């Protein structure tokens, strides 16, 4: 391949620039990591920079020792797997249909707007709560998984990715007598792994990080997903509204070190899964796609 001089200069600058940006993104995390490994006193005084002061693992021990920790980890995994699975099935099926042109799928535009509308209009917490309560799924994992199962954003992105798949492939499949379901499964899906991986990641991250729904739909701490548990562990007392401060409660105020440790604990699983998904969307261009 021919490489002009100016391109080579650009390439060096580009590498440098990306390293710099990466550093800028990682520094706050290093700081938080250092805080999580520092002593309580150093963290309260806010003198920790990027290196732990008086190294200790207390903050991690304190969090992991919580009797609900392991259970909530499991709840989170269950929720994320279930939520992502349902969400992706709904997303892929609907997106496939919506990626067809209007003459093939009359009503397509109507459906699109029908979905888009829900991205923008919502009546807030109370009506949704009433629906979940009336369905009788409160205090079950379904209350976390089902209400947000359809992500219109993901659906619309998927639709656009599907459109990029060459029409002749689809037509060839139809020629062989395949129906829509088979075409979706045998032709579209294998060709869309990067986008499926990307959208699954979005869905997973969303499920993993959601804490508010756990708080309002679940009454028992043993059902909490990790995000809700961690939110509750660091909630603490709101001093400004509650002046009923008693000495025993004061000692329970979540420490900065614990908060910092919890950020890392909650990030680990996402970081473990990430490289596996990343394979699909970050690769050398020459590796290209499976197409052709």
């Amino acid at each position, binding site marked *: 391949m021919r490489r002009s001089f100016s391109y080579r200069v650009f390439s060096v600058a580009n590498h440098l620039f990306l390293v710099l940006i990466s550093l800028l993104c990682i520094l706050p995390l290093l700081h938080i990591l250092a805080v999580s490994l520092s002593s309580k006193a150093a963290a*309260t005084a*806010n003198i920790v920079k990027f290196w732990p002061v008086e190294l200790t693992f207390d903050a991690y021990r304190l969090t992991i020792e919580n009797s609900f920790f392991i259970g909530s980890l499991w709840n989170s995994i269950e929720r994320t797997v279930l939520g992502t699975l349902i969400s992706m099935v709904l997303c892929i099926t609907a997106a496939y249909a919506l990626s067809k042109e209007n003459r093939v799928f009359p009503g397509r535009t109507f459906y699109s707007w029908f979905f888009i509308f829900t991205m923008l209009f919502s009546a807030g917490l109370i009506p949704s709560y009433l629906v979940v309560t009336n369905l009788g799924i409160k205090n079950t994992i379904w209350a976390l998984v089902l209400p947000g199962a359809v992500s219109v954003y993901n659906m619309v992105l998927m639709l656009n990715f599907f459109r990029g798949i060459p029409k002749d492939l689809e037509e060839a499949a139809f020629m062989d007598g395949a129906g829509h379901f088979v075409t979706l499964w045998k032709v579209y899906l294998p060709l869309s792994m990067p986008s499926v991986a990307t959208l699954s990641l979005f869905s997973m991250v969303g499920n993993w990080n959601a804490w508010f729904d756990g*708080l309002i739909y679940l009454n028992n701490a043993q059902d909490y997903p990790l995000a809700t548990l961690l939110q*509750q562990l660091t*909630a603490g007392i709101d001093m400004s509204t509650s002046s*009923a*401060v008693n000495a025993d*409660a004061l*000692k329970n105020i979540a420490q900065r070190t614990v908060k910092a440790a919890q950020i890392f604990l909650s990030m680990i699983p996402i970081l473990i899964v990430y490289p596996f998904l990343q394979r699909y969307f970050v690769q050398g261009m020459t590796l290209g796609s499976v197409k052709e």
Partner: protein
Amino acid sequence: MRRKKLKIWNSILALTMVCSIATACSSAGKTDGNGSAEGNQESHLVNGKFEPPITITTVSPVIGPQYKFMEGDSLNDNFHIRWARDTLGINIKFLWNVDGTEAYQTKQRLMLASNEQLPDVMYVHNNQINTFIESGQVMDITEAFEKYAPERLKEAFNKDPELWVRVAKDGKKYGLPVLSDTETNAVMFIRQDWLDKLGLKAPTTIDEMEQVMDAFTNKDPDGNGKKDTIGISLSGKDKLATWAATADFVFGAYNQMPELWFKAEDGTLKYGSIQPEVKTALGKLADWFQKGYLDKSLGTLDNEKAAESFIQGKSGIYVGPAYSPEWPLSDMMKDKTMAVKAYPIPKGPDGQFGSTAAEKTNHALMFRKDFKHMDAFFAYLDKTMKPYDKDSEFYYGQQEGFDYAMENGKPVYNSDKVTAGADPYALHLTAFPYKLPGTKQPYDELLAGKTPETPDEIKAASLPEVELNAFSIMYRDKGKQAMFNAFAGPATPTMSKKDELLKKMERETFLKIVYGEQSLDSFDKFATDWAKAGGDEITKEVNEWYKSTK
């Protein structure tokens, strides 16, 4: 597909209804006392115990997953619940529990909005009380209080009928206010080692304080050769007259407090923020800011962050509640290189001093409209209410091995045998310790060198000396120092429409004056703007409320 789903739902619904009717019928005849008897069975006091046992449901705003139970205990089966069941015949049952004001209030509101049955006894924050009264779902306890309340509780309320003000409506009492200790009155904490080094005395007046702050700022008290210290740590992110790293004492020194209603000489209520005394105080603060006594970024600092400069040894003074040595200053207390001492807040030119005091009642217990057993609740309160006398089973503490342990016949409160970091009162129906006012405080005698004997004394003796001092000062001065909000009613109509606007205007003006971005005289414009933008109407409404309480 959808119809089929609905069918399933319908059949499940029908099935559960049949089941519940069936069980209700079959259990109606039984008196096995599993709590199901409530409502269809009269329960009576037999030797101080309810037979058959009564179930009282509640919810908790303070028990989150972080709560450490004793080995083998759980939310609905713990030492306190067993105690209530065995000695009183009362089964306490938690329907749900969270930790944190916002989470709690959200769940409460959802309960109300979805017509779920409220718990029998419920902790309600002051700002929610009116919502619950209006909802008609909570009980008027006027009669029950007269009939069942313990005598000492009645006495306390008779002595100060104002205590009812938050829960009263049309002459009825819709809940039991919880009396708060006014522990939030500010105390001044100062770096004694800095004072000593610079040969200064602790300031007793604002003028003396200025000299001290000047020395702290300019004379390098930490001896590192750099001009990197400030006079006082203040927080301005929310408001200046706040609860920790607060500037409220400056306003108090001129006998006025922003955001508080006070009783004027003409007998009406007036709003503090627009009074000329506040302008004088703001002038002081602006002067201090300009002279470098204050943190140049104080506007961005919340209470906890503002305290950091004091903890780091970059600032010489911090004003906050007496419990500050436990939080947020706790780790500083262990640092031997810094010596902190507590002093009363400084006085103004007229010898006046003052700080914001918490309301006399900061929340209330409210009861479900159809709750049948106020007698049981008050019987329970009689036993669990503080202070405990020598005969009380709670004299030493709530549970041996949980919040206290016995050593040589004496209770100890910080030993390995005590579960660390758990508040036993969280398990109570009252969520917080229910305290009657007027408990004798042990601090003065302990400071005078008395050997701790009573449980209160032993407990207090384990605190850092600074905190003992702070508490002693606070209890001594709070009568003169505490400035209460004279308006304790629900938000008036104009208030709920305009309060946001007025507060925003006020906080913006005040902070900008301190920063020198606006002239001190812009205060006058603020005062007239405030009145025009709805303040006058609010004043009128507040005074109407005030008349109605008399």
